[in-house]
């Protein structure tokens, strides 16, 4: 329960910063950034939140179900843009995948030349 409380607290903090301090990022994303910062600076210990966070991310699929069930209510928007939808979902996704893969491969190869011991890390 402590973990759940901490996560809800960061969610609330994100909401406050978004709604009242006017930080132009979505509130839950702000909560994510703040919790990540708190973990890296060890303000929040991993053990405090690990169990609750794992529970929430493990069952994340459940939380999308109502939205997905309602997509037919928005069929009109989809119908107007069906070609864009098909292209961006298939070709678009594959282009992103491939270019990211090639770029990352290039970045890693360059880094290995500079720091040879990185190679040994790759089997982890």
């Amino acid at each position, binding site marked *: 329960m402590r973990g*759940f409380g901490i996560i809800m607290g*960061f*969610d609330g903090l*994100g909401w406050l910063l978004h709604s009242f301090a006017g930080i132009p*990022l*979505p509130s*839950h*994303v702000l*909560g*994510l950034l703040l*919790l*990540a910062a*708190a*973990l*890296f600076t060890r303000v929040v210990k*991993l053990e405090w939140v690990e169990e609750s*966070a*794992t529970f929430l*991310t493990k069952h994340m699929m459940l*939380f*999308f*179900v*109502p*939205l*997905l*069930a*309602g*997509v*037919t*209510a928005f069929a009109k*928007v*989809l119908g*107007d*843009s069906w*070609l*864009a939808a098909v*292209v*961006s*979902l298939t070709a*678009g*996704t*594959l282009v*992103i*995948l*491939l*270019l*990211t*893969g*090639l*770029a*990352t*491969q290039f*970045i*890693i*190869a360059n*880094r290995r030349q500079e720091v040879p*011991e*990185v190679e040994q*890390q*790759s089997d982890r």
Partner: protein
Amino acid sequence: MNNNLIADPIFGTTLTIAAYGAALLLKRRWSWLHPLIAAPLLVYVVLQLGGISYTAYRVGGDMVTYFLGPATVAMAVPLYKHAMRLRRLLPSLLLGAFVGSFLGLLVNAGSVIIFGGTESFLHAALPKSVTTAVAIDLSRWLGGSPELTAALTVTTGLVGSVAGPPLLRLCGVTDKIAASIAIGAAAHGIGSAKLLSESEEQGGLSGFSMAACTVFTPVLLLPVHAWLL
């Protein structure tokens, strides 16, 4: 059906959880049937059979969707855990995920604009390469429809998880690390789950890439959001 029952939030929450549970059971029998297709379909069928409107179901459905917020915040934990494990390679991996986030937005915007998508479709489709919870949050923020974004994001993940690994191999991305980063950046959690079922290392790398993109993508979207308002 009794209207009082449907108007109670317990109807929507129970139906959602039951459909999710049933979808998980169905997956054991037919492993290709993704729960994110089966569960919404089951809800939809029940609503159609009972003549219940989506608006009535939403009373309870919204209570389930509420937990997307805390679940989004909870993504900080896998981000931190993966980052600690991958310390040595971290700069390269972060750079790779950054490139992935940037390409994701660029290609999503480009393909929608070139192929004649409407503006409201663009707002819903722009964040579809990041993990669903964050994509929905970003879509709301840009003024898109969260329902549409959820459907587009899940489809993106399914396409990427099926076609991604063979495509990368075919096109010469032989480095397993690079391939995992690409799948995390382009096909978020669904792609990562597929990799995780094959190798824990690749699934972890892909999960890191997905989590890193949840930080980069909103920041990259800031100018877009400022321009929209």
